[in-house]
């Protein structure tokens, strides 16, 4: 599925810059994520992809530039506030809660939308809004059979699925996914790609990924970063033949 021409822009980064002392990790990067499309960001290690995700999600502040979420300037918003406004992210390393069950992992994430911490007498399990959202998210990520299993006992691929399920439980509009396919076998990769394809319909997805075959299969648009700067941003077919990309990144292929 290709992006609709007039699909709404849900997340927009403008001239995002991040300096660490003298090093420019991200240099005036602009990016737009629209509903219904997967926008992949590729680049070698150290190209600034993770830093870009961290800035967009509010984990670190940018040195310059702005971030707009659903039409609102959120550059100065802290990460939790952005998350509540509809920005979900997954991490490169697993950040699930290993001692909790799969269900509790999702339920806790869903709770972010109905926090009510002052209701100290009421059992968290009885909050129907978050339990329903948790079940729904787990089912969408294909984990509905494993709800009662402690997350620490899942396979690697299932843990990555749970990462996505926890994102979905917060009912986000935008998904920033940091290497969701890392360390996955062929079958698990297929399952994850099918899931992403399904999620694309009602989300705007940013995908940072090293698996080039997967990226070219799933992405509607690809941005290539080298040393913190964007050298190309286009549809996959154009990126495949882009001369600068070929020399800088795909040269060995």
């Amino acid at each position: 599925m290709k992006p609709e021409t007039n699909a709404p822009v849900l997340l927009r980064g403008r001239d995002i810059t991040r300096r660490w002392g003298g090093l420019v990790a991200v240099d005036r990067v602009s990016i737009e994520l629209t509903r219904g499309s997967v926008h992949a960001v590729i680049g070698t290690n150290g190209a600034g992809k993770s830093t870009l995700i961290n800035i967009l999600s509010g984990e670190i502040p940018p040195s310059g530039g702005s971030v707009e979420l659903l039409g609102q300037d959120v550059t100065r918003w802290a990460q939790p506030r952005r998350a509540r406004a509809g920005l979900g992210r997954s991490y490169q390393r697993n950040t699930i809660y290993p001692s909790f069950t799969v269900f509790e992992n999702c339920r806790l994430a869903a709770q972010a939308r109905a926090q009510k911490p002052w209701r100290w007498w009421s059992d968290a399990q009885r909050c129907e809004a978050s339990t329903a959202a948790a079940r729904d998210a787990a089912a969408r990520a294909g984990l509905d059979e494993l709800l009662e299993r402690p997350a620490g006992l899942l396979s690697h691929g299932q843990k990555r699925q749970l990462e996505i399920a926890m994102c979905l439980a917060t009912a986000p509009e935008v998904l920033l996914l940091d290497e969701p396919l890392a360390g996955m076998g062929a079958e698990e990769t297929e399952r994850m790609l099918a899931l992403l394809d399904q999620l694309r319909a009602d989300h705007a997805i940013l995908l940072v990924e090293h698996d080039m075959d997967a990226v070219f299969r799933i992405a509607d648009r690809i941005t290539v970063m080298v040393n913190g700067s964007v050298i190309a941003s286009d549809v996959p077919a154009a990126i495949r033949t882009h001369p600068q990309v070929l020399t800088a990144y795909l040269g060995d292929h």
Partner: protein
Amino acid sequence: MTMNTIDRSKAAFVAACFAALALLPWLAGSYGVDLVTKIMVYAVFALSLELLVGATGLVCFGQAAFFGIGAYAAVLLSPASEAASLLWLLPACIVAAALYALAVGALSLRTKGVYFIMVTLAFAQMAYYVVHDTPLGGGTDGIYLTMKPVLGTWLDLDGALSLYYLTLVCLVAVFAFLAVLLRSRFGRALAGIRVNEQRMRATGFSTYPYKLAAFTLSGGIAGLAGFLFAVKDGFVNPELMSWHLSGAVLIMIILGGLGHLRGALIGAFAFALLQEFFKSEAIFGAFARHWHLGLGLTIIASVALLPRGLVGLPGQWRERLVGRSRPVAVGTEALNEA
């Protein structure tokens, strides 16, 4: 065993402990009643720290300050010529300790890890030196509580038994409160913060207010323990705020088993009874003067041999009996922290 039967056996264990404590005065003499009152006060104190360390993952090394403030408030707020009413004195002591905790938490929770430990210690030492070096609370000599508080005409805390039962009621109430709290959305958010705070923020939880609320609550509960301690002894001195006590209560919850409310309960009893044991001249003769040594070695040994604390002992035995094949360790912690 399913999760539910484990939950039920935990609840039955705790209920049996409380029932035994309720019956104890019929069996034990006045020495026993006095000792167990002290231990129950420690248990309330240990529960306050368990909320921070075990439930939220915040290692506070200045818990004695809140305990001491509760104790000093009980003495300083009591009128000299008449007995204060429990109805206002008890809440006042809790609020005094909670307010100090709110201020300390607001500043110290901006730091993390070892810095947090050091900052909480520094704030506790500050409180310690205020009572140690100023005439406010009688300086190093401390100060006496001349009239113990009363509740109307039917409860006079001058009696050892009424104090015993008041302490037991407070212990049961704090335990029940925390057990309910940790199952609530607030409690589950604290559990999430303990395991991975960054993930909680990415999910949409502003973690700072959660941690501050837990810190303040914990300070209030420690203040309650301090109040009970002051009423029991009728005397307070700066040692109640010293870092030794902060360390002792930390050892209690580690000994009992972090992450479990009943660990705090068991740890307080184990610690205090070990202390009594090594202090006993009947057993150790002149060597009883060096009780710190015996206690210290025992604690080191138990931490080395019981990585999950005394609470984890049955599980450890079970694993040894059935073999180590089943990966139960990850699953058993699950939802019910009580």
